[in-house]
């Protein structure tokens, strides 16, 4: 069994935990940077990206998450997590973790009244995926190494680059765990790779 950590500073933490446990894997809330050592993969959940970023600064998460990333351990950012993972933010905002070669527009789809649900077709998934977008961002530019997984109204709303996965929507708010399964696969692969290296 693998252990997935959910960054627990603010936001939809419990929803992710429940989904991971329902999928039969171990889940912990990460509230302190040293807990990153105990996990095989990290989820940065939905919430308020501005708030999370301030709390991550205040509690010294920035560098530990970057070394977690450099250690090739998988990271999955949903909504706010996608904003934080981006290499660039559209407009005059300074990007944060810079883990994925995408440019993200915060609240790209608008304010709460423009929040919506829609069926998406996602690369590698057969049936449509019911996605929940809340004050959601999108990526308006993606780099060469980025694999686009889903597009809505011509904007990128899910993508993968090496061991980083992002979605502009909230897989944790629906009963459909196919996105989580995709991440679990990434984590399992990385655990096997790490074991081979130490052999």
């Amino acid at each position, binding site marked *: 069994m693998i252990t997935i950590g959910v960054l627990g500073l603010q936001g939809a933490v419990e929803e992710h935990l429940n989904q991971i446990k329902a999928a039969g894997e171990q889940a912990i809330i990460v*509230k302190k940077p040293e807990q990153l050592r105990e996990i095989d993969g990290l989820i940065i959940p939905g*919430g308020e990206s*501005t708030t999370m970023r*301030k709390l991550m600064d205040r509690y010294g998460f920035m560098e530990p998450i970057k070394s977690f990333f450099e250690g090739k351990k998988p990271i999955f950012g949903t909504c706010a997590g996608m904003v934080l993972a981006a290499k660039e933010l559209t407009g005059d905002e300074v990007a944060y973790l810079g883990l994925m070669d995408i440019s993200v527009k915060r609240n790209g789809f608008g304010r*709460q009244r423009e*929040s919506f649900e829609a069926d998406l077709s996602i690369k590698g998934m057969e049936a449509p995926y019911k996605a*929940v977008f809340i004050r959601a961002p999108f990526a308006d530019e993606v780099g060469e190494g980025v694999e686009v997984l889903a597009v809505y109204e011509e904007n990128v709303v899910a993508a993968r680059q090496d061991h980083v996965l992002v979605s502009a929507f909230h897989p944790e708010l629906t009963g459909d765990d196919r996105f989580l399964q995709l991440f679990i696969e990434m984590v399992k692969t990385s655990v096997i790779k790490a074991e081979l290296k130490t052999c």
Partner: protein
Amino acid sequence: MEKLLGTDTVKRGMAQMQKGGVIMDVINAEQAKIAEASGAVAVMALERVPSDIRAAGGVARMADPRIVEEVMNAVSIPVMAKARIGHIVESRVLESMGVDYIDESEVLTPADEEYHILKSDFTVPFVCGCRDLGEAARRIGEGASMLRTKGEPGTGNIVEAVRHMRKVQSQIRKVSIMSDDELMTEAKNLGAPFEILREIKRTGKLPVVNFAAGGIATPADAALMMELGADGVFVGSGIFKSETPEKFASAIVQATTYFTDYELIGKLSKELGSAMKGIDISKLAPAERMQERGW
């Protein structure tokens, strides 16, 4: 790829994204920026904070749209605003302005003493106050996507918020172990819609997020409400009526995130200066108790 706006999932989900956070009352752009910088997850734009509404007396209404607009332009976090209980048009105006959440609030003078707004008719989500499970379930029945305790606003006294949070939690526990044939009588006694009560019994929790509000004045108050099971906190007068708003705002945010780190809360509380001046609830005449507004 049809786009569905204003669904329950989208409205309730917005509140789920606020969990573990602090929502702060602000009356202008400057305060909104302080709140955002401190790590607030949202701000509530209003004309006066509850303690000033109390002091001013008269009729308290929805804030001047100019203030709401000013706040919306000043920050990138979500902006909430209050409408009077039952005031459909104030709510429609706020919705048309693009406010992210409406608080149908007892802090303002009610526009309707009999009926609350049918919130399921709106695209914008609503938060409402509650003192017990019956009131919570009635508001959910009308379409509220988020709840908060009523507490006693503008007093800086936590006792009523504690009472309301404990009451709701203990009633949820009671309902979850009840046998199916007892549930209709419980629905009648609580004045709660049966279907909603059944859902609460089945899942053991409310179907929407429940924050604490009404009297939170210190980091320890915020942490106490989290300890009692609140999903997050609203702070009204507690920040900008304190001696050092920046420090109070940031300390309350940290105490909410790390509500079981007592050493940290102690450290945060040391450097603060004085909190807002509080009011003893028993000194309030019944007519001055805002929590009695709505039903």
